[in-house]
């Protein structure tokens, strides 16, 4: 079977953030473990991202709901204040102008945990301890999803 091919193929979406002024070049990281917080800050900064760091769920929600909030959010599951899934639920319930992509970090890895995290509104999850290359691969998925969402929204 052959499929007809449109002559005007959509241009491929760039995979990496174009610059730091782009909202995709900013990441909100909510992590209460100092070790993971430092590692994430280091990795993201080394790739040119501007990183907003918070250490509890309430701060995470507050920053995520701000008008100029980053579009990429990395949330730990277990945090003081609000858990990562609870931040997801509250953020998804709030009216937002732009879609925010949420990567949930968790030491939990049972099917029930994964279902709970994704049903709460997370787009993806990564099990701790994670590999840095896998982390960035998932961040790039998030960037593609946001760009796709924006292009559909603008059409």
């Amino acid at each position, binding site marked *: 079977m052959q499929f007809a091919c449109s002559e005007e193929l959509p241009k491929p979406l760039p995979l990496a953030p174009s610059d730091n002024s782009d909202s995709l070049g900013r990441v909100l990281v909510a992590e209460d473990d*100092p*070790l*993971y917080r430092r590692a994430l800050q280091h990795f993201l900064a080394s790739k040119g991202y501007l990183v907003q760091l918070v250490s509890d769920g309430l701060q995470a929600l507050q920053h995520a709901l701000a008008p100029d909030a980053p579009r990429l959010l990395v949330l730990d599951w277990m945090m003081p204040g609000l858990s990562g899934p609870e931040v997801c639920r509250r953020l998804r319930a709030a009216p937002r102008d732009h879609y925010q992509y949420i990567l949930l970090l968790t*030491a939990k890895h049972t099917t029930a945990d994964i279902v709970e995290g994704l049903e709460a509104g997370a787009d993806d999850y990564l099990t*701790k*301890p994670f590999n840095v*290359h896998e982390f960035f691969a998932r961040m790039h998925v998030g960037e593609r999803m946001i760009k796709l969402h924006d292009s559909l929204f603008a059409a």
Partner: protein
Amino acid sequence: MPAGWNYAAALERVDGDELLLSELIALFFEEYPKFAARLTQSLSQKDFAGLRETAHSPKGGLGYLGAVDGEALALSLEQASLSRDPARAGELVAQLMAYIEALRQLMASSAGEPADAIRLQ
């Protein structure tokens, strides 16, 4: 319990950045006294919720640093806290703290050595 440390796994997680790994190790041990104090206090007060929360804190760090036996001990402590078993929790607190002290010595003695010179448990 002798401390096992998978240095190679830890180094791989930080993409081979030895400086960053050293910084993370230092950060873990900077935080450790606070963690140990909270652990001891929660145990003495039979505050199982606090004990579980406190045990969760170093679990991630130990796992990230390749100290998988310590990660397993912290997980067991979380579980013992859930089942509110003071005797088991007490044993595990002692084991975990002894493990982390042994790990500190192992990491300190391994500083500056090439990765393949560090022997695992």
